[in-house]
């Protein structure tokens, strides 16, 4: 897959203040690249810089391998389309809003009519054609905004948290339609979001931006199951990150000693190497003490529930586990369904057993 946009040694700024440095980023043709990171880290600044709406302090951006300079800006911006977080519609009809970018490009009137009506229909809002943009619901306005970007048939589509301002049911509906549309048009897309689920649903690759810059850019499964560092691990929801040391290695399998307990993991590390032992909460299975069935999981811990807290449809359970001697303790966090929590009568103080597979463990050098 060839690259459509590359950026190197970019120092990003906002109102003259340096935001962060991006060593390198490549957007491949046809892919959906999600840029995720916490609020305020500079994701939107990165998007606006890559779209050449704001200038970087320094660095290079190349489109189809050709470095962009300030003279090319308008030409480049007419090959891309940007959709920001809020719809930001003009005080005009839906039709005229969707036609805005086409008029900027001097598209003939008849072609505008045809293209706008096609995209209004594809997004299910053709009945709103003559309605004032000020009289639309949040979901309708966002569909108009999406149509306004897609009607341009851009080589590269930039989306900045496009579904953030919507309520949950509206967001789910638009997200589902958008996913189908994206697959249908195969449009190269750079999506900025702080929502991990959206990134997982839509993206072919995920770039994690944390304080200090780009920390990892990989396939979503890789980023979520094998974060590059502890910052990425924390951001992608790896709740259990424990210091350990490799005590045995054999053909890709290792024993890691964590808080006096020997746990099995998969990986290639040297004997004696200090590592961070990472576990996703949904990879841990919880059992009421004494109810453990036969299992292929290589790791078994026993502990006491410290606390529980609802997390959406699930329950987050914090378990304090101790080594056999009852000395050192470690905290492990698991996510279980509400049903499971009720069936096992999970509550603080309850004795439980935890199992997880060696392949669920990801180790990061310390």
């Amino acid at each position, binding site marked *: 897959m060839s690259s459509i946009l590359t950026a190197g040694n970019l120092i990003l700024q906002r*109102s*003259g203040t340096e935001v962060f440095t991006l060593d390198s980023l490549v957007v491949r043709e046809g892919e959906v690249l999600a840029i995720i990171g916490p609020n305020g880290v500079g994701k939107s600044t990165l998007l*606006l810089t890559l*779209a050449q*709406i*704001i200038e970087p302090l320094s660095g290079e951006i190349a489109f189809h391998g050709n470095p962009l300079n300030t003279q090319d800006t*308008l030409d480049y*911006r*007419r090959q*891309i*389309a*940007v*959709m*920001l*977080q*809020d719809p*930001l519609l*003009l*005080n005009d009809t839906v039709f005229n809003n969707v036609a*805005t*970018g086409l008029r*900027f*490009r001097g598209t003939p009137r008849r072609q505008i009519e045809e293209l706008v009506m096609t995209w209004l229909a594809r997004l299910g809002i053709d009945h709103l054609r003559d309605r004032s943009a000020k009289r639309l619901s949040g979901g309708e306005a966002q569909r108009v905004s999406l149509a*306004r*970007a897609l009607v*341009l048939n851009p080589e590269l589509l*930039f989306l900045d948290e496009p579904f953030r301002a919507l309520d949950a049911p509206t967001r789910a509906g638009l997200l589902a339609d958008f996913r189908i549309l994206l697959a249908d048009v195969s449009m190269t897309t750079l999506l900025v979001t702080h929502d991990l689920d959206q990134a997982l649903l839509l993206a072919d690759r995920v770039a994690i931006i944390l304080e200090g810059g780009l920390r990892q850019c990989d396939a979503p499964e890789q980023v979520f199951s094998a974060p590059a560092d502890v910052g990425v691990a924390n951001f992608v929801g790896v709740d259990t990150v424990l210091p350990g040391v490799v005590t045995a290695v054999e053909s890709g399998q290792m024993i890691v000693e964590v808080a006096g307990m020997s746990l099995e993991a998969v990986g290639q590390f040297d004997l004696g190497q200090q590592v961070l032992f990472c576990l996703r909460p949904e990879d841990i299975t919880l059992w009421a003490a004494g109810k453990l069935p036969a299992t292929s999981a290589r790791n078994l811990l026993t502990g006491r529930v410290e606390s529980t807290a609802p997390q959406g449809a699930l329950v987050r359970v914090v378990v304090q586990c101790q080594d056999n001697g009852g000395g050192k303790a470690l905290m492990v966090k698991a996510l279980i369904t509400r049903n499971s929590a009720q069936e096992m009568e999970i509550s603080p103080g309850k004795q439980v057993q935890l199992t997880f597979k060696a392949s669920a463990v990801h180790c990061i050098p310390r």
Partner: protein
Amino acid sequence: MEMIWDGLQQAFALFVHGDPEIFQITWLSLRVSGTAILVSIIIGVPLGTMLALSESRARKFWLSIVHTGMALPPVVVGLVISILLWRTGPLGVLGLMYTPAAMTTAQFIIAAPIVMGLTVSGLQQLDPRLKDQLMGLGASRLQVVWLLWREAKLPLFAAVMVGFGRVIAEVGASMMVGGNLKSSTRVLTTAIVLENSKGNFALAIALSAILLSLVFAITLGLTWIQQKELR
């Protein structure tokens, strides 16, 4: 009360009988203030737009200058223009003192900061990301500015109304740089001052009624256009 009623009757009579001097004074008032506001729009709106969109650190400084200009006393403007255009002044060679051009210049200096300042505040009321969004759809700088003006047309209309209201009603600067010369630089406000000083209260009231009607008619027209956009 009788005096006011006489004045209003006289105003009506002056209109009905088509007094040529009154028409000449009214026309000059409109011409001077209309030209001043037009030039203020042509210069003030783009400068106000630059100021509103600028990210320069000096913006606050320039904005405070503009805001000070919005409260410029007309007599101070009249004094400065008089000094500049006086026969022995730096621009005396132009021979503009006591001409409608001098009055227009003075009124422009009064109106331009108002138009500029209200343009800045009108554009700053828009979502600052709208500019980014339009650029992201492929707008050139001119297309961005045009659409921002369209989005801010209600406050921009208000800027024109306020500016026009200020200059058509001012008297100090027009008196100082125009001289209130009959058939040459006499406008409604200076004529009102003159008739008032002569004790011709009925005529002064008549001229005031004409001035008020004029301002009302123009403001009504602008308000009608402005409010039409809200529907």
